[in-house]
């Protein structure tokens, strides 16, 4: 518990202070049945704030309360005021250990991460912060706060960007579907390019190649959206990047993925088709928009049927762009297709009424399967 006083003696420590009860009014709503200890601590806290006490016993008090409720932002806020008043750099240093303990118990808590930033700003040094974030990411490789903090540290204090790329690389070796790692890589590459005075785009083709390596890297690579979106971003930045990505799309869509004889299913082509669509749309000629629309049709009808509503409207809009470029008037969107027929549901399941096509009684032809459908069955029958 970070070497702080035990629970009972914190209340004793403040024996001289008369607690102030919470002013909730005579008939509060959403009143919480506070545990007695928490209530006592909060009574003391209110008194301490009123008399503006900023001593070291208040650090103990705030730590105690935060164990009950790490999201009590007012208590964090006051803790920082106390630290400011005590004005001792050692307190800021040990605070990082304290915050690390709280973060490991409450990894998705906003306040503890902001508190770390505030402390680091005071210390004006990153210390071992990247190691700390790496530890947190070991428990949860996608922790949003951890990644956000990592980016802030890198931007605020700088770091060895090559090492940072190597770190992302290692995480992607563990799990190429870690979208947070892809996002961080994007940021680091951008930071690295800022270091070059020129807006040179040579690195863009390298980044496409990196993504392609993960796409072809085995397992579910073709269906992993992360490297595809990443590559699409860099395809904007140079012709070489764009051409390479285009080549990769064409190979997969022609059932000839590089370096493998795997037989491709429609779902394997989904990402390649989406990417090809965007590349054609970006070219923004009449013909390329029509080709993009043809990609959207394929997705709607075969490769991404669940999203047919979106793809059909996208196709429509792309065709209108082509028409516009040919000086033809746009056509109206005919409307989304009707939803597919659904199994039945008893009336109570949908309290606001059954969705269209669903019946309150099973139709005479309905046969309830003896086993649940597998996810692949569901996908195949969309």
């Amino acid at each position: 518990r970070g070497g702080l006083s035990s629970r009972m003696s914190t209340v004793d420590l403040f024996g001289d202070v008369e607690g102030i009860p919470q002013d909730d009014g005579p008939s509060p709503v959403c009143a919480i049945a506070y545990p007695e200890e928490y209530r006592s601590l909060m009574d003391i806290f209110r008194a301490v704030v009123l008399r503006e006490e900023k001593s070291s016993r208040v650090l103990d008090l705030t730590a105690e309360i935060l164990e009950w409720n790490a999201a009590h932002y007012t208590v964090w806020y006051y803790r920082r005021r106390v630290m400011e008043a005590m004005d001792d750099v050692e307190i800021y240093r040990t605070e990082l250990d304290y915050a690390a303990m709280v973060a490991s118990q409450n990894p998705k808590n906003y306040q503890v991460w902001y508190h770390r930033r505030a402390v680091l700003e005071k210390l004006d040094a990153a210390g071992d912060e990247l190691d700390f974030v790496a530890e947190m990411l070991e428990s949860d490789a996608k922790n949003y706060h951890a990644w956000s903090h990592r980016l802030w540290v890198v931007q605020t204090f700088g770091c060895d960007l090559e090492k940072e790329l190597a770190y992302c690389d290692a995480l992607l070796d563990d799990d190429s579907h870690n979208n947070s790692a892809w996002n961080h890589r994007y940021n680091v590459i951008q930071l690295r390019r800022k270091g070059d005075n020129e807006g040179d785009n040579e690195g863009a083709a390298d980044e496409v190649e990196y993504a392609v390596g993960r796409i072809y890297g085995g397992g579910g690579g073709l269906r992993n959206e992360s490297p595809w979106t990443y590559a699409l971003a860099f395809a904007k930045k140079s012709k070489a990047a764009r051409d390479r990505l285009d080549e990769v799309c064409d190979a997969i869509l022609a059932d000839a993925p590089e370096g493998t004889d795997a037989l491709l299913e429609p779902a394997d082509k989904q990402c390649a088709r989406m990417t090809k669509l965007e590349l054609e749309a970006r070219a923004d000629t009449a013909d390329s928009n029509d080709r993009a629309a043809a990609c959207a049709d394929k997705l709607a009808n075969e490769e991404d049927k669940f999203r047919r509503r979106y793809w059909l409207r996208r196709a429509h809009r792309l065709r209108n762009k082509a028409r516009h470029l040919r000086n033809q008037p746009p056509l109206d969107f005919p409307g989304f297709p009707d939803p597919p027929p659904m199994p039945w549901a008893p009336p109570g399941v949908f309290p606001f009424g059954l969705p269209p096509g669903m019946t309150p009684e099973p139709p005479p032809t309905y046969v309830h399967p003896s086993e649940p459908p597998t996810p692949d069955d569901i996908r195949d029958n969309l």
Partner: protein
Amino acid sequence: KRRMEGTKSERDQAECERACARQAWRQSDPGVGDAFASSRARHVAYLERGLAGLGPSYVSLDASRPWLCYWILHSLHFFVEEPSALTVSSCVETLRRCQNGGGGFGGGPSQVSHCAPTYAAVLALCLLGGQEVIDREALYLWFLSVKDASGGFRLHVDGEVDVRGTYTVVAVAALLRMLTPALTHKAADFVLSCQTYEGGFGGEPGNEAHGGYTFCAVAALLVLGRAKDADLTALERWLCRRQLAVEGGFQGRTNKLVDGCYSFWQGGCVALVEMAQAQEEQTTTTGAHQHQQQRRHDHEEEGDAALPPPDLPPSPSSGDLPCDPVALQRYILL
């Protein structure tokens, strides 16, 4: 098949899909009778119990009591349950005690003001018809005090800056007719800088595209009249890709699992994007002139004159959405 192997992301995803497929299968079994029948009466009773009081485990939400109030009242509103006069006054009095003299609302009595409970408290008070409780002048000054140089807003004094701050402030300010150039200065630019290469928005510039932050960003841009300056094509694609075929619900980020909360953040955002596209069409027909006016307002440093209320297109019906609203409904009820 190869679903049993693969990366951790793939294994987690496969497990989630199997669980959802199983539950959907159970619910469509004619033999189960009313076992899965949710009932309006049961939901309403649950909500009213929450309003009456919460157990000790809720101590972790002690800094969010206006939220609890708002979520419950808003849900009761959808069930067309009018709270009694006694409930109304109890709610209003509770929220009044969360308001601070310096403006804004905290998560409970004697808690410093914070944008999120401020948003919740103001919306709850509007639902209750108790908005005269709000100290508008103090609130406006407090909003100015959390305005950040980036154009965004801190969630509280000496607190974090992210798009939640921008959304909660501009939404409340617009609602209370106090959205001014001083508040909107660079706000839209900050939000726009949070759109990532994926098309969604992160909490801060550079952060991963995420459903909760995307909702806040798009809603804020709509209020500010600047949604057309986002890459709506990329946003719409990212959003629709976040609804997953087997589960029917939405994931919050690429390659993560579906969660009920994203039915609102992502699903709701699909409707917002429709509105943004309609707003874009409005500008095209009424001219670039008004858009320029808006941008000029955003960049004026001074200016405490309230801007006109945002010109919002009507919200679309679910039949007009490019995602699959029926699959989403089924997921919610799993």
